[in-house]
């Protein structure tokens, strides 16, 4: 096993264990913290794939901004074991069954996808993930989709402010 493989297995195990802990932990604040661990592990994977920009932006946007807002809401609502509504057994069972079905579909789709059959992930090579190349790709080849998505973000921001102003 090379060093990269060891790191890969470590990060994968970390991501899966943390993701399970998000679901298992009883305390919502713990769940949020485990979710942050998942983001860190995924960023580690991005770095292994030589996509440094994506890795860092994943940390800034998800771990640094969105999760802080999650934490804000949870802390202000003061959710904890006592006040959390306990769902009954049937609801839990239904959740497990539907979640399992989704997992099965996803796994079978990924296994059958032609694009990734017999392909090996490129570790440490390729430079499309570096910031200069990514910027050129976004602003030359994909300029119109990029601009449209930025307009979408702007409208979402304006919408959030309008909703927030009502009260």
């Amino acid at each position, binding site marked *: *096993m*090379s*060093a990269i493989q*060891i790191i890969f297995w470590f990060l994968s195990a970390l991501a899966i264990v943390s993701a399970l802990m998000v679901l298992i932990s009883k*305390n919502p*604040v*713990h769940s949020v*913290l485990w979710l*942050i661990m998942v983001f860190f592990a995924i960023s580690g994977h991005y770095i292994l794939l030589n996509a*440094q*920009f994506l890795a*860092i*932006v994943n*940390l*800034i946007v998800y*771990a*640094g*901004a969105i999760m*802080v807002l999650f*934490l*804000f809401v949870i*802390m*202000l609502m003061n959710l904890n074991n006592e006040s959390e509504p306990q769902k009954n057994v049937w609801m839990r069972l239904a959740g497990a069954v539907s979640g399992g079905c989704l997992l099965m579909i996803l796994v079978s789709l990924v296994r059958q996808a032609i694009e990734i059959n017999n392909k090996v992930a490129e570790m440490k090579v390729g430079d499309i993930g*570096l*910031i200069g190349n990514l910027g050129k790709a976004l602003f030359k080849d994909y300029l119109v989709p990029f601009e449209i998505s930025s307009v979408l973000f702007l409208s979402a921001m304006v919408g959030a402010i309008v909703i927030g102003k009502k009260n």
Partner: protein
Amino acid sequence: MTTLLAIDWALLTEKLILIAIIIFASLGIALYMTYGERKVAGILQDRPGPNRAGPFGIFQPFADGLKLIMKEEIIPDTSNKALFILGPGLAMSAALMTCAVVPWGDHVELFGRNIALQIADINVGILYVFAVVSVGVYGIMIGGWASNNKFSLLAALRGASQAISYELAMGLSLIAVLMTTGTLQLGEIVKQQMAPGHLWNIAYQPLAFIIFLVCAFAECNRTPFDLPEAESELNQGYHQEYSSMKLGFYLFSEYINMFISSAIMVTLFFGGYDVPFLNESLLSPNIAALVGIIALMTKIVCFIFFFMWVRWTIPRFRYDQLMNLGWKKLVPLALANMLITGAVILLWFNK
């Protein structure tokens, strides 16, 4: 098994030693910053400051540290214990992690090896700093929440919203700088400023520097933006329930943050380890590295003094004033600076 872990062990040891040196140096400097803070406060308030432990009181930080370690450690009964302990640890490690991308000097030649005085010159250097800074908020938030105290929680929320608000203006002000440098690598940014005929970035982007400086004050929770520690409104702040070295970690991480943000500002705007009017390439590498480190440290100390000077001169902002300044003044100003810089680069230099 000979191919197991095909790592360049020499490089690994070299980097580990460098990391150890930088972390211990940061801790030592932060230790003496507490002494400097009290001395500066003393001078500004026309009193001697600490002068009992050793000549000029230079052993005062050790006395303070010993006091913090020896004090009784109290973990509140109703607190969330694991997170209560995690909080200060997170604050401290986030503060120390930033120093990985700062170029402390060019390179030294030791034992026939060419050792770069930077732990990692990564492609997205300045974004890494932002990522670590945004993760640093969790130290305050988790600590404040886990204490299970209303004042701590309020202070933590204040601190987090302040940090998020000012990160925005900080990022926008930096975009203008990055447009002129054309790279995010901190090592490369310093080398550009060292090139003959090229001034320090402060000359090209003075407005961006002022915005960045104000935001750095807010990010470090320093006066006039130390709202999370506003003792007149919040008893003590987010670390109210903390005692002993856990409190020490919070206080200490603030000083390390100050040190690192000074280092980042020097690197981005004041030429990093560049000595003005001196061509470093004429000196032998080791001498040049030494001169560079001394130059960098001198600039950093000037900034740290500025931080302290401001703290003992300007009163604290009110919270709504803080938010108004961040969102209604600094963000539009940074956006305007960004647009003007972009227009000048496009029309004037035709890049």
